[in-house]
């Protein structure tokens, strides 16, 4: 797979995890208490044998730099220095120009200099596992110009809203696509992961750039279903799109059930992340914990039901946490009762004794808050 350049793309305006994204870009979102979203696509790349990776960041790159670093924890050889974080260094007139095509275009020298024959482009907000070497093999066998990874779903009315839905013919050739607005139950959703030759990728960047200065990669691909052989590659396993706060909530809560989680966490396909060197978690005398996923470094003395507990969280005696997601470093004080709540990093819930949201409409408590 050293013939492949991996590109982690950024997402367009259809992705907006309100609240959480005020403090960090999508790739740095905490997931399952100990991961960042970008860990999944990075691990998919390096487990597939791709160690030449460019990460495009839309804004606020600091947290991405600090988390991804040299990529050593993802098994990238630091010496060959093939992990690069790309972000705009020039001011942008308006956010509408902050497209992936413009980002590729202003870093085109790094794409041109890469020796890889193929590129695989994937965003960080789609959570699933995939062996990209099989996608590449299928791409070659099909003699495709572009291969798009997609997931057939029966949940298109509630989930994957705003994602691209593909129409495929019998040979799995993509013939049309539209935005999924939730009208139909069953859809083939594009996971926005593309395989193509580097040459074609460069051509598409140039073409898109000429066509419109607010075009995205998916726009220029859509315009060319006729001209190129665009094939679909189907994934069968679990896929979670993290494109709004409700989906973020659903994904986290569903994964508290190990029967779901084990589909994502295969020991032969490890999801790697930066370690925080946290100690194991301590459970107190009166702890009651069921149906939950708990990270290391916590101290749990209260009740936790069907929740995701991040690293270093403290749950005081008498506190009750149900169907909630606590990001790292949160403290829940005595006798506080939380249900369907998302508490951002390092916040303290001490005075408020009851907070109750709903499924797909959680209450969000902002970072470093004290309530």
């Amino acid at each position, binding site marked *: 797979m050293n013939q492949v350049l991996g590109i982690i793309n950024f997402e367009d305006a259809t992705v907006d995890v309100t609240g959480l994204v005020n403090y960090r870009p999508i790739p740095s979102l905490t997931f*399952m208490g100990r991961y960042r979203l970008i860990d999944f696509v990075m691990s998919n790349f390096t487990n597939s044998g791709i160690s030449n990776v460019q990460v495009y960041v839309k804004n606020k790159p600091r947290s991405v730099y600090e988390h991804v670093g040299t990529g050593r924890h993802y098994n990238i050889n630091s010496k060959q220095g093939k992990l690069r974080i790309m972000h705009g260094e020039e001011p942008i007139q308006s956010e509408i120009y902050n497209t992936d095509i413009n980002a590729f275009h202003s870093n085109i020298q790094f794409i041109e200099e890469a020796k890889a024959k193929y590129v695989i482009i994937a965003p960080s907000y789609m959570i699933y596992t995939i062996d990209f070497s099989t996608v590449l093999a299928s791409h070659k066998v099909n003699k495709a110009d572009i291969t798009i990874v997609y997931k057939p779903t029966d949940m298109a009315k509630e989930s994957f809203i705003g994602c691209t839905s593909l129409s495929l013919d019998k040979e799995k050739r993509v013939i049309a696509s539209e935005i999924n607005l939730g009208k139909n139950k069953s859809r083939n959703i594009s996971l926005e992961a593309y395989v193509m030759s580097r040459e074609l990728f460069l051509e598409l960047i140039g073409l898109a750039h000429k066509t419109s200065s607010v075009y995205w990669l998916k726009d220029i691909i859509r315009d060319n279903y006729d001209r190129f052989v665009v094939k679909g590659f189907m994934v069968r396993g679990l896929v979670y799109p993290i494109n709004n706060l409700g989906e973020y909530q659903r994904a986290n809560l569903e994964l508290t059930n190990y029967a779901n*989680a084990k589909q994502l966490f295969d020991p032969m396909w*490890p999801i790697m992340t930066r*370690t925080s060197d946290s*100690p*194991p978690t*301590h459970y107190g005398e009166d702890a009651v914990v*069921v*149906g939950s996923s708990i990270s290391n470094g916590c101290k749990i003395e209260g009740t936790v039901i069907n929740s995701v507990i991040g690293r270093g969280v403290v749950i005081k005696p008498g506190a009750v946490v149900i169907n909630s997601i606590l990001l790292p470093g949160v403290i829940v004080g005595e006798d506080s009762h939380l249900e369907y709540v998302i508490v951002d990093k390092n916040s303290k819930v001490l005075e408020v004794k009851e907070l109750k949201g709903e499924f797909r409409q959680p209450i969000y408590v902002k970072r470093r808050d004290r309530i």
Partner: protein
Amino acid sequence: MRQNQMLGMILAGGRGTRLEELTTKVAKPAVFFGGKYRIIDFPLSNCANSGVNVVGVLTQYESVLLNSYVAQDQRWGLDAKDSGIYVLPPREKSDGFGMYRGTADAITQNIDFIDQYSPEYVLILSGDHIYKMDYSQMLAEHKAKKADATIAVLEVSLKEASRFGIMNVDNEDRIYEFEEKPKQPKSNLASMGIYIFSWKLLRRALLDDLKEKDSAHDFGKNIIPGMLESGKRLFAWRFKGYWKDVGTIDSLWESNMDLLDESNTLDIMDPSWKIYTEDVAAPPQFIQEHASVKRSIINQGCVIDGTIINSVLFTNVVVEEGAVVKDAVIMPNSIIRKGAIVQRCIVAEDIEIRENAVVGDAHSELIELVAKNR
């Protein structure tokens, strides 16, 4: 450039036979501890946190895992330009091939290694104790007292004192006498086997000792008494806090259980003095529908659907529905099947306890080590 003023040397050659099957394939310092760690993580993390950036690890017996474990020096952040952890087994030289004959001989055989860094001070540690200590404070004291050697000591009860090497000191804590396991102890200051020496002085003492035919080439038996005899300035440095030699199955179990005590002074939760260890790519722990977890320590990757009371569970342990784990230590990747009962014992790594099996005895005096599938 004062990066490497004090070099650390960890004596990690212990065979640890009293740890039974836990040490048939790994050396004692590599034995698991505390739900996540190996014993040697403690002295190595202490070094990293104290600014001791170059550490030699003297290994001897069954050390392939220990060697490759400590060689990954980034685990302790000791991978900066002039930092490093170096594995130092005995080796062939032009004058033949030797084992380490004693604690002092292990250092003597590596004088050339130490000389490469020309440190001012050398810190000698043991690889098989559980404690947190800021060696930079001990060094500051060593310098302030213009000592030739400083020895960390623990205040023990006079009753226990006869099991230790005891330092008899004047009222400035200068050592005037060292007694190995005295029957009538004159003091309660037990040596922790942690020494700071000025390297020039130690180097000379080691080379002199090498010539002594009758010497056991041991710090406690030969080097320290020799220095006292020749009037060198040796000081005791009093350590307060948790310290334990986990040399037996009982003491290893006890020390793990100590962590469950809220008031224990080891405090592995303290973020200002982290204990670093291997970074395992395991998911969070999953506490499932039928689980009950009380007064326990559980590490990442565990999947729990049974009852856990008063226990320490390492990485990736699975406890199925209806199983009960009580007063037990379960090492990585072991699986407790449905309905099994595991109590008052240590289960080694990669062990399977079958459905409805009963392991350990709640009323036994000694702790059982479970090193085979049951």
